[in-house]
């Protein structure tokens, strides 16, 4: 766990006059599942978009795999992008392609991969994401929300990335679907050795999957630590978040299971 794969230092994000992040530091270590929480408007999604390169920060440095990415040229950026996968909130699947074709899109970047093999690999990823075999032939509009998220995860995992970014993976899922998705993330992160960066509101997901939690507040990462350590943090928002009735219920469930 000693090796940080992503290292953020002094990152500032600003929209006009409004400063979202200021002097934000964060380390993400290889193989861990990091959950990012924070109130609405604290810039959780902005942070995710900044790290994956959809947004350039106004200041600061972002090192991924030891390479500085702020101001990096396109080739460097592309090489890093290949090693990362992103699952957007509602899957962000291409609506004109079937699920299998969606998963094949990143695989097209691999030279000399014949189409039948590509299709078979896409089928493997679809099946590993817990979708039934026939889902590969369906269009995104024919899937339920949970299935779209799984298909989005299959696409994010297509090239065996080292880091996966998940934006609200369980938002809008029913409790059974959300639990199944938590287990899927945990299982895949263990067996594939994935590093997972996960933005969530779901306390059960935090309990079930995350090794470490980072709390965004006051325009920076306020604290990081395990769920247990969060309970001892003396900050009004953190206290309210982790000591609220929902947090208690989630903690009790987690303790009963363990």
């Amino acid at each position: 766990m000693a090796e940080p794969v992503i290292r953020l230092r002094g990152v500032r994000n600003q929209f006009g006059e409004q400063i979202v992040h200021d002097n934000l530091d964060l380390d993400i270590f290889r193989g861990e599942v990091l959950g990012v929480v924070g109130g609405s408007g604290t810039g959780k999604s902005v942070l995710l978009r900044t790290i994956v390169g959809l947004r350039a920060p106004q200041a600061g440095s972002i090192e991924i795999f030891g390479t500085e990415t702020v101001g990096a040229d396109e080739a460097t950026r592309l090489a890093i992008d290949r090693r990362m996968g992103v699952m957007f909130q509602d899957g962000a699947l291409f609506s004109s392609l079937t699920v299998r074709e969606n998963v094949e899109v990143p695989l097209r970047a691999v030279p000399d991969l014949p189409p039948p093999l590509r299709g078979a690999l896409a089928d493997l990823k679809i099946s590993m994401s817990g979708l039934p075999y026939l889902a590969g032939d369906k269009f995104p509009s024919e899937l339920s929300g949970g299935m779209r998220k799984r298909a989005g995860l299959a696409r994010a995992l297509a090239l065996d990335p080292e880091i996966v970014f998940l934006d609200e993976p369980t938002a809008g899922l029913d409790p059974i679907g959300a639990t199944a998705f938590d287990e899927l993330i945990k299982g895949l992160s263990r067996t594939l050795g994935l590093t997972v960066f996960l933005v969530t509101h779901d306390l059960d997901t935090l309990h079930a999957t995350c090794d470490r939690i980072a709390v965004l507040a006051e325009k920076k990462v306020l604290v990081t630590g395990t769920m247990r350590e969060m309970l001892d943090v003396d900050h009004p928002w953190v206290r309210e978040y982790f000591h609220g009735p929902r947090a208690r219920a989630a903690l009790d469930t987690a303790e009963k299971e363990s």
Partner: protein
Amino acid sequence: MRRQHASAAIDVTEHDGRSVVRLSSPLTVAELAGIETVLDRLPLDRDVRIDLSDVAHMDTAGAWAIARLRSRLEAAGQALEIAGSDARQTALLDTVAAGLPQAPEASPRRRTLSDRLETVGRATAGFVLYFVELIGYFGLFLARLARAVRRPKEFPLTSLVHHCQDVGVAAVPIVALMAFLIGVVLAFQGSSQLRQFGAEIFVVDLIAIAILRELGILLTSIIVAGRTASAFTAAIGSMKMREEIDAMQTLGIDPAMTLFVPRILALVLMLPILGLIANVAGLIGGAIMSWIELGISPAMFRVRLFEGVSIDHAFVGLSKAPVFALIIGVIGCHAGMQVKSNAESLGRMTSAAVVSAIFAVIVADALFSIFFAQVGI
């Protein structure tokens, strides 16, 4: 026996009656094609041993290739032994083997002649069904209109006025300009032909009959079909997409009364007016061009128009307007209700509405021509 393969990283030897595969390249998606060609060629009549001790990096694609080789060998009654894999690789192999997609048994059927016939039949039936549905929507519109007459309080008057503005007033400039130019073109073309016979004065009859009877209202309807049918479909379709229409139904609001009646009725009221504006603009255009090209003064144009051309032509033309309006409105509203929950179907239905509306207007115009010819107006 020792065979060396093109890719030096894969080494296949025969040993004690089984194939021994020694891999030394990274077993990843980038190398998959090369690895697969070798693994595919392995004979399936003996056991296989795969040595992974030199494989530094393996991803799911590599693990998949091995898992597939195992299932092929097991189907042939042979075994696969994996040697030299570290704990992570073993875990990955297990995960991939567990996640190997199970293809359902059903094999894809070839399309037969009867399948093709079925497609044609379904398309034909779909067309008839579409027509029946349009008649259904027309009936719904009439029924709601009748109810509005009986219970005027339910009638959405504000909405009607709003749509009259949208459909009618906003379309005046484009319709007038279009008709004016058509009048100019007719006068120009007509004069160059009629001059050969010394019958220049008949250009007035030509312009008046062509515009009043056919072109004025037909071209107006086509423009309105493009403008308004698409707008109806987009507006109703996006409400359908966001479940607003379902919400209306659960709140006891009738979508037909609140959405269809004001839109279609606005079209029925506005299209004859737009047609009349187009007629006037067309005649003005024709008169100006006749003056420039043939020296027919506006006064002479007026006299010839009143004496030579029966007012019946204008009535015939304008009598078609409400029918065209109903066609455009019903097709637009119907297409909007067919929108599914994705943006793609919204776009598809919008363009389908425009095409259907223009096509239906032209067909209706042809039917009108036959009808008027038969009754002799």
